[in-house]
């Protein structure tokens, strides 16, 4: 009786009267991830922070990387808790905190007010994830995708969040569903993890005037998403200069994701063109990146093959800027323990084709346990 009565009260409040009190809901996720380089060659022998390569970047955003010969579980493991407070049908406050084994801090990844203007239009103000790539916004939630981690050949920059506002439009036209948004804001990252991959000294990073939009359409087995984003990026240059480098580098990103899901077979693809114009130093870095994946669901088992490539080119000499180039070929076997828990086993073969000694070639094995609640 009680179990049934409560939702009836809640629903009747939702649908027939203004709510008198707020509702709250907790959701969360956990991912335990361990990995080991099983073989590797090359790589810089003067890698920042005294780390030894060949090595494999686990997460560009945090700067975590796997070093040869060590099995570690504390580079990518994380737990998140989300609280959704609804003050009315239209207004809610969403807070998501994430604790990562790689850092000591508990990060406030998301905190924003969400206001449904109509059934189609939503305004959100606060701190959110930057939706650059298809999986960017939920890349902490392992259960939501096939890999042990989205390919770092594409994913991961200095900044992953922003403080600002977004407007979203959701609708359907015939058999087509549409979700589109525009967003704008700023982000500043003190001692950015990303920079520990490149500099011995801690450096801050800033993305100013982030401005972007995305449009996602879906119908039956098809989902497509197009994004455009620009920002003005700069870093500090300690110990010489603690101030942000000026003028900022101008970043432009255009991305297209095309996915097909036939229930058993599914295909995932993503193309991303990142352009970084270092206006102060008069050179331009163009970085096209591609990812293609195919998988097949056998009941609880899903084998999944993925290929990705990140390929920089630059209109200056390699001493000024050495282009980074990688190809990551991976095979993942996912096993769904139940609807909320999955185990993943992944093999990555990363080929480092960069124009200077960087991470080197590596073969990595990863095991991940993902759950949501």
């Amino acid at each position: 009786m009680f179990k049934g009565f409560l939702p009836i009260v809640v629903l009747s409040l939702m649908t027939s009267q203004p709510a008198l009190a707020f509702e709250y809901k907790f959701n969360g996720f956990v991912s335990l991830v361990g990995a080991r380089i099983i073989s590797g060659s090359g790589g810089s022998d003067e890698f920042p922070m005294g780390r030894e390569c060949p090595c494999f970047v686990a997460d560009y955003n945090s700067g975590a990387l796997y070093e040869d010969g060590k099995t570690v579980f504390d580079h990518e493991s994380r737990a998140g808790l989300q609280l959704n407070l609804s003050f009315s049908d239209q207004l809610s406050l969403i807070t998501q905190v994430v604790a990562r084994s790689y850092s000591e801090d508990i990060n406030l990844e998301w905190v924003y007010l969400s206001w449904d203007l109509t059934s189609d239009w939503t305004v959100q103000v606060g701190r959110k994830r930057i939706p650059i790539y298809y999986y960017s916004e939920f890349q902490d939630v392992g259960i939501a995708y096939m890999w042990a981690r989205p390919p770092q050949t594409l994913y991961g920059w200095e900044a992953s969040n922003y403080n600002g506002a977004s407007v979203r439009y959701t609708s359907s036209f015939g058999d087509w569903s549409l979700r589109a948004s525009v967003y704008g804001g700023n982000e500043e990252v003190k001692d950015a993890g990303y920079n520990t991959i490149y500099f011995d000294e801690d450096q801050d990073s800033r993305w100013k005037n982030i401005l972007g939009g995305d449009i996602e359409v879906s119908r039956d087995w098809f989902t497509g998403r197009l994004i455009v984003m620009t920002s003005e990026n700069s870093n500090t240059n300690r110990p010489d200069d603690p101030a942000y480098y000026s003028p900022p580098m101008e970043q432009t990103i255009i991305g297209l994701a095309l996915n097909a899901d036939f229930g058993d077979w599914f295909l995932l693809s993503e193309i991303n063109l990142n352009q970084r114009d270092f206006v102060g130093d008069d050179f331009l870095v163009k970085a096209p990146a591609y990812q293609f994946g195919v998988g097949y669901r056998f009941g609880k088992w899903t084998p999944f093959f993925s290929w990705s490539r990140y390929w920089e080119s630059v209109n200056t000499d390699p001493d000024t800027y050495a282009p980074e180039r990688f190809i990551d070929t991976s095979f993942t076997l996912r096993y769904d323990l139940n609807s909320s828990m999955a185990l993943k086993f992944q093999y990555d073969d990363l080929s480092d084709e960069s124009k200077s000694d960087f991470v080197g070639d590596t073969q990595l094995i990863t095991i991940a346990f993902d759950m949501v609640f």
Partner: protein
Amino acid sequence: MRFVPVFLLFFTIICHAEVAIIVHPSNTSNIDTDAISRVFLGKAKTLADGTAVIPVGQSGDTAVADEFNTKVLGKSSSQLKAYWSQLVFTGKGTPPKEVSSDADVISLVAANPNIIGYINANAVTEKVKVIAKP
């Protein structure tokens, strides 16, 4: 020879919960299974004629929910959880409210012309209207 199909029919009934999708008796909107799927996946909040619609599901561990998810949404419970995780943790949507019995769904649907739900076909009463048996 006729006993074979009869046997198969019986076999089907005992192996699968037959699902009935129900609305308020006053609801005259034309709703096909694709539209039902979009509503239950959070892709549409209104029907083609502009009527607002509120989906109500059943707990994920019930046979009728499993049957509905597979037949109408075309997703296993794991796929559905992955799908909703993408939306829940990015502020793009929340899954339909869930209740734990056919009787609860009937009470809600009978009380609100905007609610759409699903129940075991053999639990249908005159308080609700069946619009599809996928």
